[in-house]
């Protein structure tokens, strides 16, 4: 009976340690995921807070050459931006990347603070008032109303 009781206690001990370690392992995985999410979330949020863009065109005269309209967007924030994932919406319609040509004026490859991005958009616009929205990769946008003759 004594040896049987010891064996039972030993089995209970090993089983409880294994279960405890499994529970701790699962908790650790969740904490790791949570830590990664917190880091990524705070990085995104801080980048968004430091991002600002301004469309600096003259709303009266938008350069237009054979259906290619030119818009100038200035990085007025504190965050350097990429130009690859800029979204341009004119009158509620997204202009596809094939119809956009983006160049950083007087700058290099990165859209730094103070740099002006020239966006050539190939689009057909009727005479009248229009609305432009430029959205950065991290979701910060500027809206600009302009007229075409």
């Amino acid at each position: 009976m004594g040896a049987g009781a010891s064996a039972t206690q030993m089995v209970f001990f090993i089983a409880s340690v294994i279960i405890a370690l499994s529970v701790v392992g699962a908790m650790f995985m969740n904490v790791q995921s949570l830590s990664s999410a917190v880091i990524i979330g705070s990085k995104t949020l801080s980048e968004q807070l430091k991002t600002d863009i301004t469309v600096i065109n003259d709303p009266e005269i938008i350069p237009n050459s054979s259906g290619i309209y030119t818009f100038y967007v200035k990085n007025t924030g504190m965050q350097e931006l990429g130009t690859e994932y800029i979204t341009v919406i004119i009158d509620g319609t997204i202009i596809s990347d094939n119809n956009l040509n983006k160049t950083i004026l007087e700058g290099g490859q990165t859209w730094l603070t103070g740099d002006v991005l020239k966006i050539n958009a190939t689009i057909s616009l009727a005479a009248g008032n229009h609305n432009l929205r430029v959205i950065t990769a991290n979701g910060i946008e500027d809206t600009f109303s302009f007229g075409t003759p």
Partner: protein
Amino acid sequence: MGFSTSAVVVIFTASIIYMASMFYPLVDMSHKQVKEAEKNSNELWKEKLNTKIAISNRDVTELIIFNNGSTTLDSRKINIIIDGEFKSSSSYIVSPRGVWSPKTSINVDIVAAGGRVKIITANGAADYSIP
């Protein structure tokens, strides 16, 4: 049975302390990062709200631009759009260059006479001039 309970309590306690010691510094660092960004954002908006420029005089190609706000600007960082076209910094002359204090003015020579002129500061504040 009592020994098993003790072992489980030790495993849980040690693990929780270890996880907390790993998680807390990351959360603290992230919190500080967001707070710093919020501070930068507030400074950015404060500067923007306190920036105002006015083109006070225009004589063919010479423009006098007055810093009407309470933010110190940098005259080297202005942009100029003439008749809708962005002009490179080499196509106009700004004087004095550099610090542009509140309640002072700068001169801009756009070299070639143009129509509508838009002057834009580094933080996006702008004013227009028509001949």
